[in-house]
């Protein structure tokens, strides 16, 4: 493993078996299949895709919160190296300190019966990171200040806060154990645009100041483009294209990424109706199409796409794509 990779997935698959009919093979939801990604230390890694593409499952597998059916996920910081597949006991507990999650809906993620102080202090107490109440309080105040919550806020309950403030509380809770790696799963999707910008700026400044590595999951390419320095595009359980942000937008190679980009409504009222429409909807992950999984919706699909699984190829330095015809289509 090269030195500056914090967490890497190799040939990772996550399958969820369903209850069968009692005969034949049990159906399996193939949520993630053959994923290869490396997240560098201190980077802001974006993961984008439609609902049902498996991006949340991938994020959870990297936190060991989803079963790893095949392949491996390796986490390695300056102190420890963990193979998540076999991690358990005290080592797993230690990993929980190093890797944290920020949820999508700040209304559901905070207990209504705990004060903000208690919410932020809970990880410290559960993980035994502080030895006295004074120490806990000092740490909570420090983190709260970082997330622009004032001391007055700490005594209140979550219902007194707006969506943006609640999301800042969730961020504070994730930061309090000094993690190395944070998965932010659709953390701004439930917020108004004016608040969304505020939370994105906060996440970016935390990343700059403390060097925490982020896996930022979103369905919104324009949000990803503004916050992340590396982007992976997911479709039906597989990564179809991954590149540094500027390359992904200047040298878009996969037809799915192109369709996603053109589906974003333009802010210019004079540019109307140029969307390259994608027909149909994402197929079921129980029974994905053979060959390239995108072939049922791809405007350029040919016979080869229906039979042969496209290889994960490097187009240029750091820019990978899984498509048979990306050169011709570029």
């Amino acid at each position: 493993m090269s030195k500056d990779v914090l967490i890497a997935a190799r040939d990772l698959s996550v399958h969820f078996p369903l209850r069968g009919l009692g005969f034949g093979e049990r159906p399996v939801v193939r949520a993630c299949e053959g994923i290869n990604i490396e997240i560098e230390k201190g980077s802001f890694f974006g993961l984008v895709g439609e609902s049902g593409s498996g991006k949340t499952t991938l994020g959870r597998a990297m936190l060991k919160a989803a079963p790893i059916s095949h392949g491996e996920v390796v986490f390695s910081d300056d102190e420890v190296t963990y193979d998540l597949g076999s991690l358990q006991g005290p080592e797993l507990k230690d990993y929980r300190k190093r890797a944290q999650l920020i949820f999508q809906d700040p209304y559901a993620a905070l207990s209504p019966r705990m004060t903000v102080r208690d919410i932020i202090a809970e990880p410290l107490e559960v993980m035994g990171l502080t030895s006295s109440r004074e120490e806990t309080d000092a740490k909570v105040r420090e983190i709260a200040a970082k997330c622009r919550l004032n001391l007055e806020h700490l005594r209140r309950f979550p219902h007194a806060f707006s969506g943006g403030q609640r999301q800042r509380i969730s961020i504070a809770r994730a930061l309090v154990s000094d993690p190395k790696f944070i998965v932010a799963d659709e953390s701004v999707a439930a917020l108004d645009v004016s608040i969304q910008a505020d939370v994105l700026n906060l996440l970016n400044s935390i990343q700059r100041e403390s060097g925490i590595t982020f896996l930022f999951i979103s369905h919104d390419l324009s949000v990803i483009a503004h916050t992340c320095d590396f982007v992976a595009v997911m479709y039906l359980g597989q990564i179809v294209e991954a590149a540094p942000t500027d390359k992904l937008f200047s040298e878009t190679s996969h037809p799915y990424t192109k369709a996603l980009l053109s589906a974003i409504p333009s802010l210019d009222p004079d540019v109307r109706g140029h969307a390259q429409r994608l027909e149909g909807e994402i197929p079921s992950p129980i029974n994905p199409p053979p060959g390239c999984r995108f072939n049922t919706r791809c405007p350029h699909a040919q016979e080869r796409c229906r039979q042969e699984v496209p290889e994960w190829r490097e187009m240029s330095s750091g820019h990978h794509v899984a498509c048979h015809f990306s050169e011709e289509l570029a």
Partner: protein
Amino acid sequence: MTSPLISVKDLTLRFKTDEGLVTAVNNVSFDIAPGEVLGLVGESGSGKSVTAKSLMMLNAENSVYDDNSKITLNVDDREFDVLSLKRAQDQMIIRGGAISMIFQEPMASFAPAITIGDQMVEQLLIHSDMTAAQAKEVSIEMLTRVGIPEPAQRFGQYAFEFSGGMRQRAMIAMALSTKPRLLIADEPTTALDVTIQAQVIELMKDLVEEFHMSILFITHDLGVIAQTADRVAVMYLGNLVETGTVRQVINSPAHPYTRGLLNSLPKLDDLEAPLTPVPGDIPSPLDRPSGCVFHTRCVESDAIAERCRNEIPLTTIDSANHQVACHLAKQGDQA
């Protein structure tokens, strides 16, 4: 000039709550012409949905309309005073007759235990003198029109058997089957993926042309507005702060709040541009700021802050019919 399809004048709506009267909509006036798409934009809590629901008298029991409020609907040379319609049979014209509505969450808007087809037929039987067989035919035709494959089979299915995009299409088919003059679309694409959103927007544009309907399109997404609306009204804390054509509002916004919304949007053609949030949160409607309601979050009001804090800005209107309610805007004629 032809008379507007619907005209909202000085609409003020309060809710009776335990904590007193809460003003949800304050002195809102706008017109929608036949065939026009009006976009209504604002953050959550700005009163967009409540305004739209007033057009169909769908607000909760505890709502109180101000005496000056007036909503006039012009259909087939007849005028209806919407807010005075009290009996259920009189309200049929605004509830599915001339006005239909599609909602944000298509799963929550269909009855789960009645087939999609039965729900579509039911409203056709109420609003027209079709027989059940005719209504079924029309419903299947509408499902075909919105691009649902195998419509005859889908007609007998339940909402849970449809995917999100499919449900929203069925919702649109249902709303349009009675051929309304005005369609109220309340965040119709917010719960959908971008690729599905693009399909639904395209579909709505086609249908507006085909049926020559007007649409009141409610959304918080300015990109969606830029792609669909003819005119835009921007709402903040129950007030209309700016109204104009889509080009006026998006290309040369006159109100600091509109500028704030535009600056906080991530733009794909300029990745380096910083995201500038509108500072602070929308105040509680229980505690409306004095003067200009936006002054607590306005970054441009330093110069004449005194006036912004104390004096309610009047709506001014320029020669191109671009209206704005701000002390700092260039002085035009008072509306």
